[in-house]
């Protein structure tokens, strides 16, 4: 079986800074792949490379059998790749429904306006925003805007969804809700590549995890393996709290298994 997404020795530098270095990995269809790493590790940059915001300086990115290296974002979106932003980017003076209609209109299906609106409605329901459909995006709370990011990406009916810290800034109840939403999305057969700092959440959500540090892959494997990896623990030593969380997970790997069944 071929990979849905395959990165081959991808590199990106900003001036003197090598933000992503010789990174290779494959992602299966239907998988939730977690991406973790300290701040500034190059995770968001990697997303920007995959969906074409930046062209890589080296390497290749193949999505669904198509070489998308260096293609423009709107071309890549048509191939069925959607994302959310770490810093939310709503169309502030449009309603939630209109926001999502943009996603549906110009996404993988390239729907006409009417059908796009139906797809948008569906995505809004999945994201739990149905009572906000007619609200202007700028009147949403942070949690609402994060859900809108998700709904808008989902409305595009992507094959692969890139989620950049969708849980950041949410309170525990909102986090729980959002995790439920992500699981529901995966159940619809959409593959998910997710960046997250909340160890608890990402460990339980992901099938596999890749750890990034200084733009390089530090480790890759099942959540429990990764959490036990001494190199990973060392990379997180700059952030003792995270390291502690990681170790907490390594000691109780049982929780991972159960998390996969919704």
């Amino acid at each position, binding site marked *: 079986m071929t990979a849905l997404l395959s990165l081959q020795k991808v590199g990106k530098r900003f001036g003197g800074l090598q933000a992503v270095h010789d990174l290779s990995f494959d992602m299966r269809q239907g998988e939730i792949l977690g991406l973790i790493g300290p701040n500034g590790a190059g995770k968001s940059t990697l997303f920007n490379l995959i969906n074409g915001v930046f062209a890589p300086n080296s390497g290749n990115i193949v999505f669904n059998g198509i070489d998308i290296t260096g293609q423009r974002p709107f*071309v890549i*979106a048509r191939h069925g790749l959607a994302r959310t932003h770490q810093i939310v980017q709503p169309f502030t003076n*449009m309603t939630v429904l209109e926001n999502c209609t943009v996603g549906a*209109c110009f996404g993988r299906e390239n729907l006409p306006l009417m059908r796009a609106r139906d797809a948008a409605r569906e995505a809004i329901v999945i994201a739990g925003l149905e009572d906000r459909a007619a609200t202007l995006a700028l009147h949403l709370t942070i949690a609402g805007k994060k859900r809108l990011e998700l709904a808008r990406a989902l409305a595009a009916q992507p094959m692969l969804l890139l989620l950049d810290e969708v849980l950041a800034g949410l309170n525990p109840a909102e986090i729980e809700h959002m995790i439920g939403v992500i699981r529901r999305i995966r159940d619809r057969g959409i593959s998910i590549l997710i960046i997250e700092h909340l160890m608890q959440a990402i460990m339980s959500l992901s099938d596999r995890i890749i750890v990034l540090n200084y733009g390089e892959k530090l480790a890759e494997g099942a959540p429990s393996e990764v959490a036990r990896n001494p190199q990973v623990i060392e990379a997180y030593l700059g952030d003792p709290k995270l390291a502690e969380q990681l170790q907490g997970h390594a000691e109780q790997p049982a929780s991972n298994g159960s998390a996969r069944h919704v």
Partner: protein
Amino acid sequence: MDSPITPQAMETVMIRRPSVRGAAIITRPFFWLITLVVAIFIVTPAIGNNVELRESLLLAAVYITLASNLNLMLGYAGYINFGSIVFFGLGGYICVWLVNSYDWPLWLALLAAGVGVSALSFIFGIGILRLRGPFFALSTIGIVEGVQAFVQNFTPWGGSSGIYISPAVFAPLGGPARALWVVYFALVAVMGLSLYLSYAIKTSKFGLGLLAIGQNEDAAAILGVPTPRYKALAYSASAFLPAIVGGLYFFKGAFIQPSDAFDLTLSTEAIVICMLGGQGTVTGVALGAYLYEELRGYLLTSETFSHFQLVVAGALLLLIVLFFPGGLMGFIYSRFPRTQRLLE
């Protein structure tokens, strides 16, 4: 909203309501509203052969056309075009030149002007629309300089002394007096087309993409909106009807020269009108154009103000930008939210 209306609040309620309804356009009330306006423009001056009213409405029609096409860029896609006058001027030149030097019939010359200028702006657009926001705006100023310099040095178009149309050209239209009516009706038709076009685009997928670009271009591209093509298309579409209006306008005047054809006052006024009526709205721009024409008529007849037309336009624009960024429609929408569903 019953809190005091701050500019920020105005910005939030104004404009940018892409209609996501899909029913055929002629079943919508707004379509008939436009038709009504066009009918009024046709009928009222024709009653009793009212030439004075006709001339005033003619100018209003020119303003409405220029402003509503400018609105495609400014109000929908969020790009300021300071140089929309080049569409008007170049259209005028192409039309006058074809009619005068090659004896083309007026309608064909107008079409050529529209198509030619649109094609040219599509090519320009692909280039300068790679520039974001303010840089695009700056380069549109440069385009005016560039085109003007070209025309001034282009001998087939008479360089800086321009082109005079020989009166014989009016013969096919039934002589000069009747030709003025023909030109007027043609102008009103173009105005009507502009309004329909603005409305049709606004309620289309294309319009939704443009509005998304206007709000957040990066996010729009990431969602799959083909931003370069859409922007260039909008820019090019916004050139078509103004070029035809330029053709009609200078055909009517029987004379064209660079300083009139590329007079920045007109494109400046188009910006003022867009902002006055409410950028991004179709109704507002028409309303703004009409009001501005009235105001201007008053200023020109008033001794004190006639020299200071620009000052008044500038002051008006400044006040709108500072205190009413939603323009008239923003104000109306916020006071009477229901109107938003009827008046696009």
